[in-house]
């Protein structure tokens, strides 16, 4: 009875489990479908391309779990199906290994793909599936994975190409050794051996490479031996040179020229490798000379010429020039010139210049162009010299090189060249000059100036509206005196907006100094008009840098005539309260108690460029004192103006007895430190200034402008 009960319960459990499984399978059409991996694989294999595209994105997320299903689909005949399966497998092979929270790293999904593909190679799979698996192999096989199943495929002619490709692209030492062994096996078909040998070309660095190459070089089959030469060329080791060189030099006379070329080309590649690796420079140069003397064709000889130049120094110059005297000079002239261009270093440049007259003219032109573009200091200097002094073709080439090379002197050289040869078409210079200006604007003052000179050429000579527009922008950013005619034209057309005011001011100062007062002043007005307080100081500095401020007095509104009284007693703690709370009494005939005795009014007419009054010079060096300065301003009409002052130290200002400003401070003097709006009556106005002295320098300056900072019509009563 008990056994029956147990059986009944077991059966019931089975029925319930079956029912549960039944419930977990795909519901009927119309119900919600649970997307499982199997569903996705079905969708990938289905007829709907778009559904397949969606499945393709999701399947790789299943990682190793998806591999078996995908490998089955890889065997399908329909191209869309197997191709998509292929890409999914590749995606999985590239996924990183999952990391669990206890820091254990599981095997990367790649391992699952590799095992599945190894199975494909070992089973009696269809040729199509094997090919596809071979295509996947390079993305799947790691260094320790045995390539033996794939190596075995080399014996199947219909799969050899694909197998060689797979082994070549996987390129682990095991793969390459296997291919090399196949190539060395003289019992095999020679064509197959050559194919295998060729599959090793370009692969080096595996431990057996050099030894394998030597064995192949000694192969009785000349095609295989040629591949051996090519492989040995990858070593660049001195110990390998003699074998390689000997093989090239001892080829039978009836060997095809194309094959002979392969051996000599291998020698060339070998020396290139050795030269680049360093540490055997003299050997490499000697080998190049050997090849140059012995090569049976001019291409290999060209390579030797190039090698001497690329890796050599000034000692190669005679070799490069000597090829021009060879019977095959016509074919070696190009590499000789290319070689001269490739040489680096001052000594090499000097060696070429020493032989300058021996060079054909086209060589000279090419060399100066190259040196102008990318030569060192010596070469650039020579190019600069040729750009000014040579015959036209060489001169032109030198200038062109300098423009290309963004040399600071290039713009001047080009201007001189174009002046010397007015028939030179400008078109070919336009775009290089634009590029030149664009690079030079980032540089130091000299380079910016060069950019401006280049821009000036473009403005003057280009017929392209856009080019002229951009060039004017550059010119406005850095106006140069040479551009006066252009800037004058811009002044007349009102086109100077946007130009930095300090740049304009500097140019204005230059123009006035050079005698063009009218236009210089016009430019200065432009610079001052609307200048912000921050900029006005810069402008004033720029305008006075050349010492021409007296000529700008009227423009700047500098006040140069004062009556000054002091030093008067003053204490720092008092500030402008106390004695200077009200405007001091002005009586030019009075004698007043000053600091250290009686003081009287003094007339001051000698001021600095911006009207600076040196109170310490006029009144004496004191500390803890103050001075009063008065002037009388006459304006024809009532005016709102701005009094722009600088002072050391504090300053208080009255206009017609009314206090309009005070700044009790401790500072050095600079122009336009305080901008004070004032209202002037028509006729005479009294301007009174008190300047305090704490210690050190003592002085003030003042100028009067309209509200925009431009000139104000006024005079000062002497």
């Amino acid at each position: 009875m008990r056994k029956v009960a147990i059986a009944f319960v077991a059966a019931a459990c089975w029925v319930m489990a079956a029912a549960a499984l039944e419930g977990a399978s795909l519901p009927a059409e119309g119900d919600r479908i649970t997307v499982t991996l199997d569903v996705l694989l079905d969708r990938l294999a289905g007829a709907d391309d778009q559904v397949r595209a969606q499945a393709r994105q999701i399947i790789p997320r299943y990682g190793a779990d998806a591999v078996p299903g995908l490998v089955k689909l890889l065997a399908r005949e329909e191209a869309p199906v197997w191709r998509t399966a292929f890409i999914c497998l590749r995606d999985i092979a590239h996924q990183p290994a999952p990391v669990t929270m206890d820091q254990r790293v599981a095997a990367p999904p790649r391992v699952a793909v590799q095992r599945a593909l190894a199975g494909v190679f070992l089973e009696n799979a269809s040729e199509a599936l094997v090919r596809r698996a071979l295509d996947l192999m390079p993305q799947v096989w790691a260094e320790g994975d045995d390539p033996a199943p794939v190596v075995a495929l080399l014996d199947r002619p219909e799969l050899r190409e694909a197998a060689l490709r797979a082994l070549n692209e996987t390129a682990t030492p095991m793969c390459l050794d296997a291919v090399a062994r196949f190539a060395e096996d003289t019992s095999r078909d020679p064509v197959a051996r050559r194919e295998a040998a060729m599959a090793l070309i370009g692969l080096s660095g595996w431990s057996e490479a050099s030894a394998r190459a030597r064995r192949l070089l000694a192969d009785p089959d000349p095609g295989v031996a040629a591949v051996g030469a090519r492989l040995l060329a990858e070593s660049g080791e001195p110990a390998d040179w003699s074998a390689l060189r000997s093989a090239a030099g001892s080829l039978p006379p009836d060997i095809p020229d194309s094959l002979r070329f392969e051996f000599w080309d291998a020698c060339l590649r070998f020396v290139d490798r050795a030269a680049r690796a360093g540490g055997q420079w003299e050997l490499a140069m000697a080998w190049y000379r050997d090849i140059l003397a012995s090569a049976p064709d001019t291409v290999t000889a060209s390579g030797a010429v190039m090698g001497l130049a690329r890796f050599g120094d000034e000692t190669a110059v005679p070799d490069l020039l000597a090829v021009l005297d060879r019977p095959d000079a016509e074919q070696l002239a190009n590499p000789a010139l290319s070689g001269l261009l490739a040489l680096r270093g001052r000594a090499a440049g000097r060696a070429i210049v020493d032989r300058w007259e021996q060079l054909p003219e086209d060589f000279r032109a090419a060399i100066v162009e190259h040196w102008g573009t990318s030569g060192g200091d010596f070469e650039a200097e020579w190019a600069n010299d040729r750009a000014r002094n040579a015959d036209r073709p060489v001169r032109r080439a030198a200038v062109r090189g300098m423009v290309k090379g963004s040399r600071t002197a290039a713009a001047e050289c080009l201007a001189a060249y174009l002046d010397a040869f007015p028939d030179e078409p400008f078109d070919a210079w336009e775009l290089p000059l634009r590029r030149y200006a664009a690079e030079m604007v980032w540089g130091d003052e000299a380079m910016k100036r060069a950019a401006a000179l280049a821009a000036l050429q473009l403005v003057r000579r280009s017929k392209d509206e856009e080019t002229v527009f951009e060039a004017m922008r550059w010119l406005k950013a850095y106006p140069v005196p040479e551009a006066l005619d252009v800037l004058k034209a811009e002044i007349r057309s009102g086109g100077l907006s946007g130009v930095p005011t300090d740049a304009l001011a500097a140019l204005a100062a230059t123009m006035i100094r050079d005698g063009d007062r009218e236009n210089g002043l016009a430019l200065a007005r432009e610079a001052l008009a609307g200048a912000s307080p921050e900029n006005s100081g810069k402008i004033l500095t720029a305008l006075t840098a050349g010492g021409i401020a007296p000529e700008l007095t009227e423009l700047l509104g500098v006040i140069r005539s004062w009556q000054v009284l002091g030093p008067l007693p003053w204490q720092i703690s008092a500030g402008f309260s106390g004695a200077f709370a009200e405007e001091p009494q002005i009586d030019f005939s009075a004698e007043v108690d000053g600091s250290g005795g009686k003081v009287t009014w003094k007339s001051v007419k000698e001021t600095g460029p911006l009207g600076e009054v040196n109170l310490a010079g006029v009144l004496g060096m004191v500390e803890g004192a103050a001075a009063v300065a008065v002037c009388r301003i006459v304006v024809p009409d009532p005016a709102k103006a701005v009094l722009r002052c600088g002072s050391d130290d504090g300053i208080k200002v009255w206009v017609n007895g009314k206090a309009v400003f005070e700044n009790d401070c401790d500072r050095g003097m600079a122009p336009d430190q305080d901008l004070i709006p004032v209202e002037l009556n028509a006729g005479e106005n009294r301007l009174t200034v008190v300047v305090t002295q704490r210690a050190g320098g003592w002085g003030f300056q003042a100028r009067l402008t309209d509200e925009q900072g431009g000139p104000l019509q006024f005079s000062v009563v002497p």
Partner: protein
Amino acid sequence: MTDSGTAGHRISRRRFLATAGAGLFAILPNRGHAGQAARRIGPNDRVRVVVIGNGGMGTRHTEALCANPQCELVGLCDVAKGRSMPLLEKVKTWLGQPVPVYQDFREVLARPDVDAVFVVTPDHWHPLLTIMACQAGKDVYVEKPVCTTVEEGRAMVEAARRYGRVVQVGTQQRSIPVFQKAISLVRGGRIGQVTHATAWVGVNGWQVRQENYTDPPKGLDWNLWLGPAPWAPFSMERYMDWMGWHDYARGGQLTNWGIHLVDVLQWGIGQDRPLSVQALGGSYRGNAGQDNYETIEAVLEYAGVTATWEQRHSNTHGGKGYGIAFYGTDGALFVDRGSFVVETADGRREWVGEPEKSWAYPPHHDNFFECIRTRNRPAADIEQGFRSTSAVLLAGIALKTGGKLRWDGDREQFIGNAQADRLLRRAYRAPWHL
């Protein structure tokens, strides 16, 4: 992935080997010539050129070259007589006389009187043709993208330097005034310090399609067309739409337009070695199994600048379906082949350039010919073209590997990712090798 020799296709490799001729399997048939360097071009000489690859792009180049007084067209070459012969008829009109036509480029390289070649073939042939032409002593104009792997590109640069050849890349935007002007503004600080740049284009429309295998058309040397790429039986879908196939074009629009636009991007920011790259993408409407994705978003990190590549449906910025944008601290600049637009606090200005007449741009040719004479590096030197190509190739690798890849631009390998490093090279089908 490849699709070589799917079971059931009896148009087999063996048959091609038999019909291709014993010459292909001479001992090392890579080189069909003895090396003879080209002559020195005098100031009054015309450069003698042959155009290899006579399809649409080759036709454009040929037409421009026929009109260029600096050169003399002395031959055409294509593995398909169906391309070279119709072009020959046009050449007769342009030049008033025929030129020799070749099917095997090695015969061209063996001619000592040829000074330079234009390589206008499908992408997978660009590297080897360029290298072999250098080894034959010729100067080379090679179309973009210059290579399908970073290893190939470096080998091309090495060949140019080793044999002293001038190699110009077909990134003709370097010679187009609208780009030169725009870049002069960017480099000149017009928009301040550039902190971001983006290049954008529409979706990649080249797709891998279901193949119908047939015999190749008469006059097409299919084995030579495949060249170093893996063996595959002929289909018109593969031959005509090779841009969709990863074996011949590593990226579709990513490498077709990507190199043009990323070249300008790198030119503007003054850098050509990204520090890192990340990419996402796919073909979301179908064709999930193709490697040249329809939609891609890639991010390249440079020192001080982030750059993005956008490739997607209905992709416009400011009404422009492709272009490059630079974003700086003081404004932005947008440029394409027709115009550039500058937006700063001063306002917006647009400058329109000359309409583009042809993808084969004569001033870019002229620059090539001039450098043949002077032996100076051309405007789009192979090193530069390689750097621009490798940037988009890296994006393609990032698409395959996922995650952020850090790049060592000096050693030209990824940092700490040997698996990704394997994608920097590809095996060549014997007898071809780099």
